[in-house]
């Protein structure tokens, strides 16, 4: 176990002691203790920057289930390190923020921080594991920690709803991912991503390639809230705001992005372009759909949720389009800009969206509402928050000089270059990418402005606010101020990131290319990108000013047709449908069940008999049928019919006895006197017992009119027929001598007996007899208990 492993697992270990800290040191906010861990981890990961920049990855391995090729291999490379820094960096800020956000007197802080730490560890595990099974393990852990954080206020119905929804969708994705991992293993014989990357040629030519890719993408898309799986993310906003800022904006939802980036070297070579089209197409559509839907939201966090969906789509589309570069050999630098933009925007999004979420939390905290219809005019009351929000929204809208502007420009560049790709039919319909990208950006601009001005602009509506608004306490402002400062710093000096962080990450995503130097500049001259940005701003302002006029188009989309509605209808109807289905056949009557069982019995056995030509009749060994046999046979038949037909219980039982005696006479005929005697005794006793029981039974037992039922008759005849046919065939197929000769030879010596049946019963197979006796004993105990113990109906447990 290396230091790296301990670092990854440390949040789990820390989570164990959190409840004790919480219990012992109630007067200090638990968050202060927890805060130490992400800070230490952040510093720990920082030290890898120089090494990773030089292209030296760090790999440490601990075996977990080596027999099944599962080793906990931790690997630090450009991509992993970028994510690790995001996770621990944003994590530190979020924990700091949460200390002021969650009251130590009212909240269950122990639970909160345990979940948060579990998430922190799980997320580090996802991005630093090379072994896919281990990655999957951590992946599911992130889903469950998210589940608990969304359901943190579980007394609220909406929290439970949101938690369940996110769990179902993300675990669905997790299972798909597992399916994809298994398929990749079948193709390559390894769970190691590095080894798979080395085996790309085997994978892309394998028939399982496409299913594996689809499974992996389903996992990534559902986690990263891509269309149509995004519906869980808006409901995840039920979580406390620090959680939304952390999991549902900056980190967990980027796990899908991470996975796609990580898998790019494996799947990008796909000669049919499925990867590029799926990742790019789903991403760009999600960008549009999220931004379009964000505008109609009235909850600050709702806007931010859809905005996150949209921004994740943006990053996803860049990764997809960037993957196209591998098909262009050394002429790739043209397209790789998309991948660079993806990584850059990933960082930028974490900074501006994190700060915006924190501001939304501050507003909620200080005014008591997040509804933009009640908010407004907070600019003067909360100047610091306003400044942060201003920076965040303008960056998100892609306005200079903030970092969002830079990555947005690069995004346009990436999308414009799609048109120049002359593969996979991008030259014909590829133009859709820049068009949709531009439209999505306009909407992004509009909702950014809504977010900012509806909250801070206009007049204060004090009567609509549950609390008297005032600026947030200093502590709560630290984290968003830091993030907003980063937005500005990265905006002015993007190149402090480019060589240290972005280039190594891009090299991990595109290991086939040497990334010589990345330079991000503010000014590209009068290029189409610039015109697009100017267009976004102009059209965006117009649309924002005329909001009331055109938002009616949202009413064109009936609520009943949304994906959300689909989920809401599907889940309960799945339950009621299942229940109705069960009720159709689970009648509670044993006769129905027996009818099913015997129908299957007849059907499957007769089909097997027929298809295997199994019927066989051998008459050479058979004796002639004598008069006695015929008579006994008739007696059995008559007796059986009497049992069924008789109206009197007494007659039925006597007839039953008659059948039994007839069977024992068969034994006499076949020269088995001891069996005959046994059978006679049994028949006598059982008939006597039945008669004894009469005393306790109601007199008229045929009160319920039994009609003749054809199905039942057919089933019983069928069962009899099948059993008989198999019996005849089995009897006629004696392939080996019976072992019984051994008993003949050994009864006198060494068994020392004179009656072979006895010796078999008490010696050769005495073990059977011992337990048959036990069966009798149990039955006796049962009868005793049944008679003596009659518990009243009471609760059982």
């Amino acid at each position, binding site marked *: 176990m290396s230091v790296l492993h301990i670092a990854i697992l440390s949040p789990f270990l820390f989570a164990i002691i959190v409840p004790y800290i919480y219990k012992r040191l109630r007067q200090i906010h638990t968050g202060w203790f927890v805060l130490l861990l992400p800070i230490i981890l952040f510093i720990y990961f920082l030290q890898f920057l120089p090494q990773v920049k030089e292209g030296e990855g760090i790999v440490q391995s601990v075996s977990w*289930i*080596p*027999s*099944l090729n599962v080793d906990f291999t931790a690997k630090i490379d450009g991509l992993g390190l970028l994510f690790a820094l995001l996770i621990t960096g944003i994590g530190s800020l979020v924990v700091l923020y949460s200390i002021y956000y969650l009251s130590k007197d009212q909240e269950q802080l122990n639970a909160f921080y345990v979940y948060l730490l579990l998430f922190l560890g799980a997320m580090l595990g996802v991005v630093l594991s090379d072994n896919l*099974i281990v990655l999957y*393990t951590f992946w*599911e852990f992130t889903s*469950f920690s998210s589940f608990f954080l969304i*359901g943190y206020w*579980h*007394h609220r119905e909406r929290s*439970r709803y949101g*938690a*369940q929804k996110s*769990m179902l969708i993300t675990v669905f994705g997790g*299972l*798909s991912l*597992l399916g994809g991992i*298994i398929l990749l293993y*079948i193709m390559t014989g390894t769970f190691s991503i590095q080894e798979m990357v080395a085996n790309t040629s085997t994978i892309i030519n394998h028939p399982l390639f496409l299913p594996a890719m689809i499974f992996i993408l389903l996992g990534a898309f559902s986690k990263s809230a891509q269309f149509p799986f995004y519906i869980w993310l808006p409901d995840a906003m039920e979580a406390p705001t620090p959680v939304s800022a952390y999991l549902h904006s900056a980190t967990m939802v980027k796990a899908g992005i991470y996975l796609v980036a990580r898998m790019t070297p494996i799947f990008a070579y796909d000669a049919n372009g499925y990867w590029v089209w799926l990742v790019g197409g789903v991403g760009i559509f999600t960008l549009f759909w999220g931004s379009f839907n964000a505008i109609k939201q009235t909850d600050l966090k709702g806007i931010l949720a859809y905005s996150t969906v949209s921004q994740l789509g943006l990053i996803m589309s860049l990764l997809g389009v960037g993957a196209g570069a591998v098909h262009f050999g050394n002429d790739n630098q043209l397209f790789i800009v998309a991948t660079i933009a993806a990584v850059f925007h990933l960082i930028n999004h974490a900074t501006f969206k994190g700060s915006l979420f924190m501001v939304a939390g501050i507003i909620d905290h200080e005014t008591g509402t997040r509804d933009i219809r009640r908010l407004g005019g907070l600019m003067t009351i909360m100047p610091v928050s306003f400044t942060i929000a201003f920076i965040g929204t303008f960056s998100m809208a892609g306005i200079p000089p903030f970092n969002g502007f830079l990555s947005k420009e690069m995004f346009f560049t990436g999308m414009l270059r799609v048109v120049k790709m002359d593969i996979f039919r991008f030259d014909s319909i590829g133009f859709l990418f820049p068009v949709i990208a531009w439209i999505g950006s306009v909407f992004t601009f509009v909702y950014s402005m809504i977010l900012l001005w509806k909250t801070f602009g206009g007049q204060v509506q004090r009567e609509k606010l549950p609390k008297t608004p005032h600026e947030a306490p200093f502590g709560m402002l630290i984290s968003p101020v830091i993030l907003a400062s980063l937005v500005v710093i990265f905006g002015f000096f993007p190149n402090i990131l480019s060589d240290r962080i972005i280039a190594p990450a891009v090299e991990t995503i595109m290991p086939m290319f040497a990334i010589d130097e990345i330079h991000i500049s503010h000014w590209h001259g009068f290029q189409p990108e610039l015109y697009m940005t100017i267009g976004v701003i102009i059209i965006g302002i117009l649309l924002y000013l005329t909001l009331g006029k055109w938002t009616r188009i949202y009413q064109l989309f009936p609520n009943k047709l949304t994906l959300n509605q689909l989920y809401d209808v599907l889940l309960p109807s799945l339950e009621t449908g299942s*229940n109705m289905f*069960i009720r159709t056949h*689970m009648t509670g009557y*044993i006769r129905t*069940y027996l009818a*099913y*069982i015997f129908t*299957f019995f007849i059907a*499957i*056995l007769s089909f*097997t*008999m027929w298809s*295997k030509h*199994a019927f*066989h009749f051998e008459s050479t060994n058979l004796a002639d049928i004598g008069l006695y046999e015929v008579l006994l046979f008739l007696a059995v038949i008559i007796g059986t019919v009497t049992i069924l037909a008789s109206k009197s219980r007494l007659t039925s039982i006597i007839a039953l006895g008659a059948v039994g005696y007839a069977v024992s006479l068969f034994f006499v005929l076949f020269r088995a006197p001891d069996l005959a005697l046994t059978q006679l005794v049994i028949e006598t006793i059982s008939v006597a017992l039945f008669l004894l029981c009469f005393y306790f039974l109601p007199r008229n037992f045929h009160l319920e009119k039994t009609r003749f039922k054809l199905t039942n008759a057919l089933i019983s005849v069928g069962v009899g027929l099948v*059993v008989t046919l*198999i*019996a005849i*065939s*089995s009897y006629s*197929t004696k*392939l*080996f001598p*019976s*072992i019984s000769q051994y008993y003949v030879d*050994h009864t006198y010596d060494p068994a020392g007996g004179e009656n072979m049946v006895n010796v078999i019963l008490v010696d050769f197979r005495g*073990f*059977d007899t011992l*337990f048959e006796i*036990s*069966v009798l004993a*149990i039955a006796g*105990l*049962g009868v*005793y208990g*049944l008679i003596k*113990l009659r518990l009243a*109906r009471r609760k*059982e*447990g």
Partner: protein
Amino acid sequence: MEMNNLVVLPIFVPLLTAVILMFISKKINIQRWISVGASLVTVMIAGLLVHHVSTDGIQTLDIGSWPAPFGITLVSDMLSSLLVLTTSIIGFAVILYSIYSIGEGREKHFYYPIVQFLIVGVNGAFTTGDIFNLFVFFEVMLMASYVLLVLGGTKIQLRETIKYLTVNVISSSLFVIAVAYLYSIVGTLNMAHISQRIGLLEEIPGILTVIAILFLIVFGLKGAIFPLYFWLPGSYYAPPVPVMTLLGALLTKVGIYSIARTYSLFFYHDQSYTHDLLLVLAVVTVLIGVVGSIAYWDIKKIIIYNIITAIGVILYGISVATTTSMTGSVYYLIHDMIIKAALFLLIGIIVNITGTSNLKKFHGLINDYPVLAWVYFIAAISLAGIPPFSGFVGKWLVIQGGMERGELIGSVIILLTSLLVLYSVMKIFIYGFWGGKDQDYPDQHSISYNKLLIPAILLTVIAVLYGFGSEFVYSYVAQAVDTLMNPEIYIEAVLKE
């Protein structure tokens, strides 16, 4: 591979205990102590047996020293001894739980001896190497289960026992008939000998396939596979929770074990027919199970239907019949026995607290019973196969085995239905444990909550260790699968040729 008396002890110790307990039925405290002590001894013996098998290979015992195949031979291979160990552990946990929940009435009416008899039957069925003796142990197990089901004599128990009894009496007679047919053809009862003899045939007669299907029906009725499961949901619902646990965790698994044993040892010559049929039935069984488990808001029903789902998963691995899939099935089988027992016990505690099994009638238990909630959560996600808990490796390998053999659709169904399994058990967590603290339950203070929790925690901890320690478990499972995949190992151990 010498004779080893240890093989018979997991059968003999409970038998002896049962006999002793029968004579002190009114002395409840002594009964309890003896039951707990004896089941602990059984666990230790079973553990020792597993150890012996792992170091010295298959252990056999010819009863009465009549040599195989003429006498009855007990055979502990790794699969058998692992299942015996698991059974013994579950028996121990259930007895511990019963002490605080089953009530004096049942305790005075031979509850403990009959539980011991049940364990005799189950351990015997796992251990015997003789097909007729298997029938006998089925009878022991079934008779004990009839009595446990009806003991108490409440209306629902009587009603459901009649159904259970009817189905099982029918399946028992089919069992004897099937054994007779098989004996007529191969002339022997020793399973290794049957395998050896069938192996000598140059051409497999069709009737043998028919008999294989007949055995599938017999064992499938016990194992509750589609379309033979109909009796299970009602019957398992009726008895008190400890009995439900024993039946749910152990009995169906004996049916599955028997299918695994016979279908790997001697009914493997017509796989394209028998195993493909099994594959289809397994997938439908899984589907029926999940449909049932999401159809109800009754927590007992939810777990009961999950039995059926798990059986389908195990059977799927058996039907695929590759080393990977078999490894998965064995992993899953043991996991499922432990985790099902744990879940039943946990459900029992909930019912004890709230007085109802209707999920719509209670909520917010986590506020007062956090430990119960977290143990339940771990058990629930283990059941759903979330790594690194116990259900994961089994599910993964079963699916991988299926995919390797090109059964993509079936494997994907197994994979995705585990989402519904998760949904069904997490529903209990979300609606039963979560929620405000605004409900009081009449009986909640009269029960021994902490004491009931101990056996449930014990089983859950075992399940967690089973998951984390998959590598440790692997060496045992691999040995079990080795024997399943190579019948000659079994034959050689029993017939010593």
